């Protein structure tokens, strides 16, 4: 009913500056290209309905349908989405120490998944200077090279689409919440393609509060340092109030207010902090940078964690109640802000409401938000 095509995608997403550059619409056809963190539409297209629109996480996302397809249940009102359990975790002995953010859980899981042949290839996101560059990795040892947060939005799904075009199946992915939402829509085969097979075997999600616009950040940092030589970014927990940029010649602190100016408009409408449509989600652990928070959402995710623990790739521990409560509070705040803003601007609608929506959820949105 709400399906549409590339021209609506352009009108509803690109022209409203809602595109986050996830790459879901890229490498499916010749019309969409991602460059420097932004996706562009090269020419008008004549499809009335297209995969580009159906996959886009920023327009006509039917959260209940996505959730039913993945969990067999409608969208959960829980601030961190549907899950089986929440643990704390960190990389185990089998993982070479890399420059990970916090506990290295994602590196550990993907390394294990490749090493144990649970997946044939992993779609990961690397970095050239500030520019995130997606890549397809098949060697377990190569996974660690993609560790550490990117902060700028990345067209990871473009690399995924390309891999699928080239015939790859049994893929694992590491995705941000918006990317994971797009992938969840792709896996529902919304265009009802006869030849469709789900090529995805495992998805690890990353907690995310916002991303940064590549060009804007680059133009800002280029005045301060040689961006090709940036080694790592970090945003330490409050009250630090800075983003730390590590370079060969030392650390530069950028005031967080300068950083926030470079958050794309699109992130203001994002309701998902914890990557709710994944097998597992991973983020910071409040009390210690040596650990991660691990949300296990699916049976497949549970099996992967169990295997990784068993083979020494991952260590897990109990999640303190207080930490979980804090996580839910933070995730709930993001969700409430985004849905209220979206609702107020007519972007969040129920399934029955007319006109275009960014997100549709059945039931009492106002009450939930």
């Amino acid at each position, binding site marked *: 009913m709400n399906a549409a095509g590339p021209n609506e995608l352009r009108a509803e997403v690109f022209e409203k500056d809602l595109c986050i550059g996830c790459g879901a619409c890229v490498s*499916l*056809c*010749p*019309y969409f*290209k991602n*460059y*420097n963190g*932004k996706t*562009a*539409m*090269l*020419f008008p*297209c*004549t*499809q009335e*309905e*297209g*995969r580009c629109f159906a996959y886009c996480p920023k327009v006509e996302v039917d959260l209940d349908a996505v959730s039913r397809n993945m969990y067999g249940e409608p969208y959960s009102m829980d601030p961190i989405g549907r899950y089986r359990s929440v643990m704390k975790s960190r990389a185990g002995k089998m993982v070479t120490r890399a420059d990970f953010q916090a506990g290295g859980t994602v590196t550990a899981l993907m390394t294990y998944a490749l090493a144990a042949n649970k997946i044939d290839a992993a779609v990961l996101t690397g970095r050239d200077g500030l520019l995130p560059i997606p890549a397809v990795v098949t060697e377990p040892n190569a996974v660690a090279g993609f560790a550490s947060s990117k902060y700028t939005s990345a067209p990871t799904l473009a690399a995924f689409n390309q891999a699928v075009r080239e015939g790859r199946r049994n893929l694992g992915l590491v995705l941000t919440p918006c990317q994971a939402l797009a992938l969840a829509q792709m896996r529902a085969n919304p*265009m009802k393609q006869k030849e469709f097979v789900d090529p995805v075997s495992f998805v690890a999600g990353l907690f995310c509060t916002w991303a940064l616009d590549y060009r804007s950040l680059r133009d800002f940092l280029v005045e301060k340092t040689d961006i090709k030589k940036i080694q790592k970014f970090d945003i330490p927990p409050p009250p630090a109030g800075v983003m730390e940029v590590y370079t060969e010649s030392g650390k530069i602190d950028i005031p967080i207010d300068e950083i926030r100016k470079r958050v794309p408009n699109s992130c203001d409408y994002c309701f998902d902090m914890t990557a709710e449509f994944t097998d597992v989600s991973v983020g910071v652990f409040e009390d210690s940078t040596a650990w991660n928070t691990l949300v296990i959402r699916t049976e497949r995710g549970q099996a992967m964690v169990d295997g990784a623990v068993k083979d020494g790739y991952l260590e897990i521990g109990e999640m303190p109640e207080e930490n979980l409560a804090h996580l839910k509070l933070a995730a709930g705040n993001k969700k409430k802000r985004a849905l209220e803003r979206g609702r107020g601007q007519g972007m969040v609608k129920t399934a029955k409401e007319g006109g275009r929506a960014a997100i549709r959820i059945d039931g009492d949105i106002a009450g939930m938000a």
Partner: protein
Amino acid sequence: MSYLFDEEKGARYLLMGNDAIVRGALEAGVSVASAYPGTPSSEIIENLSKASDKRNIYVEWSVNEKVALEVAFAASIAGLRSICAMKQNGVNVASDFLLHVALSGSRGGIVLVHCDDPGALSSINEGESRHFAKMIELPLLEPGDFQEALEMTRWAFELSEELGLLVMLRSVTRLSHASGNVRIGSLPGTDKTACFKYDAVPGDQASGPVVTMPVPPHHEALQRKLKKAVALFEKSPFNTYTGPEKPELLIVTCSACNLYSREAVRLLGAENRVGILKVGTTWPLPPDLIRKNLSRTDTILFVEEVLPFLEENVKILAAEMAKDIGVKTFHGKNDSTIPMTGEMTPDLVVDAIKRILKIDYAPMPETFRNKAREIAAKMAPVRDLTFCPGCPHRASFWNLHNALEIDNRRGFVCGDIGCYTLGLLPCGFSTSKTSHSMGSGIGIASGFGKLTRFGMDQPILAVCGDSTFFHAALPALVNAIHNKSDVIFVLLDNSGTAMTGFQPHPGTETDAMGGNVPPMDPAALCRSLGATVQYADPFDVDATQAILLRLMEEKGARVLIMQQMCALSPEKKGKKKYRVSVDQEKCIGDRCGCSRLCTRVFRCPGLVWDADKGAAVIDEVICAGCGVCASICPAGAIVREEAV
């Protein structure tokens, strides 16, 4: 026997207007001919170059119209007869020099042939060049048919010498490019010597230095020359009246409109009611001639192209003579009896006369007209202009368009003049967003590139062909580099002046007469100016787009030379590099994933959409074998093999 060399006086030829002008110049013993090519003027110098050897003429394609006129002028003040040809807007380019030529005067007969293009059939403007004659104070002639094109040209040289002044001779597309019967005259000898005499005092018209200072006496001399021109024009046989002694309506006309007026009067059977004054000497106007003819009747209709030049000048005289000739009713462009824009046709003159004389006339019975129009609307699909099959410009604009879209900062291309002007149309993916005079693409871009202080952050590109580069782009590029403007200058180098028929230019190895000359290298020129220069082959789409994207990240004046020879160039025509075919099994067609990118968007005439099969096919006859479509097919369905 070619009309260029025929010595038999009175021999009859079917000649294009431009050829009649050529023959007139040959009969006048022209020694030097120069021009910058521009439709509809190009054939004049092209055909004179064929007579270069036998008729002992120096012929050159000059770098631009101003220099062309300077070259012709040198011959004049060295005592030779010379001709310079250009299209309407070329006069604008030459006009600064023209102003000074009027003031300094000339010696050997010098004729500037300027061909206007009413209706802009081959132009991007409908410029009226006759006003230069009035503004700069030069005599202006306008041939009214093919025979006159010859005779008037021949006479223009004599007139120029008699006045010591350059003579302007104005043609229009429908005269220059139309053909009619012409009787030729005789050819003079070809033995000429040139010498520039400067020993007398300045101001000595025959043998002093040729200067314009002191200005007031030179200006007074110029006006004396124009008065003399008026006296000569009063007696000129090129001003004719045909019709009854006292017509109800007097048509005052000139140039090709003379033929339209005659046609219209005949069609309406109004030969006994309408008289036609055809004026051949349109500036300065001879007042006695005008007085005599305006006295014939009180209703006057002006028929001319483009602006009401004759109309307004006659009206000034009529106002001055009102006491003698009485009050007249004038019809023409100013009262909208004749359209102010577009080219004239016999039908428009019919319309005007019909309304003034209240004659009932329909060119077609209404039922026929309606049926014919309805059928045409249904059965004659519009033919959009497009680049030729295998044209490098299609690939170049594809790359420019895609790189700009991918870059995603609302960058754009400033267009220029040549085949690639079509870059503003769908065949060029509507990539060019400005289109003005020769060389103005880079000039405008140079200005855009300085607007960063006002927050303008769009990437700015300018395109220009290799001939246009030398014509007028070079000073603008110098300006951009000197002023540190952030622009990318893309030189679309297709090795020739393709638009007007492959005339040589400073970057080619031959001159107008077929002699060898050292070609100039635009890249070396740009580098010496301080620009970075890169090359790309537009047929290599991925590499070209990557270079463009990288250039757009850089600052300052950047030059990219896209090199690929014109598909029509004599060296390339008919030789296919690739044999191209479509694997119809692989073709995605109009489904999601392609949506007919090749036939719907890329639109090379060699690619045809076969709706029945739901796939693209190659038209073997039309395909030029460039192979670019194989690079853009998302399914790898278009296959190219090296042709043997």
